[in-house]
């Protein structure tokens, strides 16, 4: 293998691993794409690079030019990916981060020199989005990539993650992924449906809206603009909710096959298992899912080692998706 010119060249081309031992249905294969293998540790490296490259192509950012500031609301992974790339490219990054994310997410932002602006934990990611929008209104000179509304987010998956999955597993019948910004499902989903319209797309969500205490009324809700603009509701076949306890149980089950992944990966695996379980007996199926990050950033939550009731309560008060 040749040497890579930059750590950013390591983004993407993540491995797809067979974890069918965990399938509840002997006729259904289960595979998981390990996005924790990206250099910044999550699937969001792809999104961060895609958004920065587009901003550079449009002239909004110029590598090497001093005093360029970016602002992004993020519960962690997008901020971490951006922080790594901004460090390499010489941009100053400010991340609006909800107060209740794991300590490791905060530490990783600091590793790459990002500035953290804390938003109220009780308002979850909604609060971070609201605060960021207010800040960029006061500072129009800052570059606001805005992962929730930036088409370069799903495009990263349409050009990268989707083709990689199709290359490695053209026999897939179902694709299951988490619904955060909706970028993965929109990009991978559109690509896979173009190759084979029969591929079913399942979205997995945590019950965040049940847990966010700072929501004043339902009009405070939020749907990512890219989800509505790119027809997310028409693209998806099914949307299922996975609660914290089940997410942690499946994060632990992944370890049985040697996979050390984050808590959201447990949630998406739980969704993939649900998907596999409803395939009729005797019908063959191949379910592919995405582990958005590795387990490293969640060690402080005791997810693998502490009593499950205690960890479940803890997970309710931190943002892990």
């Amino acid at each position: 293998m040749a040497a890579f010119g930059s750590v950013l060249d390591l983004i993407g081309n993540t491995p797809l691993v067979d974890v069918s031992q965990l399938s509840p249905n002997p006729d259904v294969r289960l595979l998981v794409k390990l996005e924790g293998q990206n250099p910044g540790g999550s699937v969001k490296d792809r999104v961060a690079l895609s958004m920065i490259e587009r901003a550079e192509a449009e002239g909004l950012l110029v590598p090497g030019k001093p005093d360029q500031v970016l602002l992004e609301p993020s519960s962690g992974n997008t901020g971490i990916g951006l922080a790594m790339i901004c460090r390499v490219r010489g941009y100053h990054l400010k991340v609006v981060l909800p107060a209740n994310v794991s300590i490791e997410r905060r530490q990783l932002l600091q590793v790459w020199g990002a500035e953290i602006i804390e938003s109220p934990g009780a308002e979850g990611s909604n609060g971070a989005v609201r605060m960021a929008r207010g800040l960029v209104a006061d500072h129009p000179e800052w570059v606001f990539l805005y992962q929730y509304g930036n088409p370069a987010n799903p495009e990263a998956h349409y050009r990268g993650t989707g083709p990689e999955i199709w290359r490695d597993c053209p026999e897939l019948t179902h694709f299951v992924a988490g619904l955060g910004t909706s970028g993965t499902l929109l990009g991978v989903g559109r690509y896979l449906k173009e190759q084979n319209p029969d591929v079913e797309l399942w979205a997995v969500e945590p019950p965040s809206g049940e847990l966010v205490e700072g929501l004043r009324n339902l009009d405070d809700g939020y749907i990512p603009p890219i989800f509505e603009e790119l027809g997310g509701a028409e693209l998806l076949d099914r949307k299922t909710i996975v609660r914290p306890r089940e997410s942690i149980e499946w994060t632990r089950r992944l370890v049985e096959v040697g996979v050390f992944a984050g808590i959201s990966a447990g949630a998406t695996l739980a969704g993939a298992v649900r998907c596999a379980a409803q395939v009729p007996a005797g019908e063959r199926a191949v379910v592919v899912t995405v582990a958005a990050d590795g387990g490293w950033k969640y060690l402080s939550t005791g997810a693998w080692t502490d009593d499950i009731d205690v960890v479940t309560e803890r997970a309710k008060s931190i943002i892990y998706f």
Partner: protein
Amino acid sequence: MPVDVRLPTVLRPHVGGKATIQVEGSTIADILRQLESEYPGLSGQVLGEDGTLRRFVNVYVNDDDVRYLSELDTPVKSGDEVSIIPAVAGG
């Protein structure tokens, strides 16, 4: 047939602070209409004036979003759990 309906924190003040309430009905539409008539404070929170689900409201039957099943016509049976969950940001 009573089903359990889980309510998010933001709606609990309208039902005396309860997290779960039992409601009778055989479809999601029945359940939501019944809920809004029993708890007048909830009226207009879940269903819009045109009788459809409001934009930022997701309703799940046993963890499946009804928008991807039969929407308000999705059937429910005794023992099912219905969850009303606001759409919020992630990522």
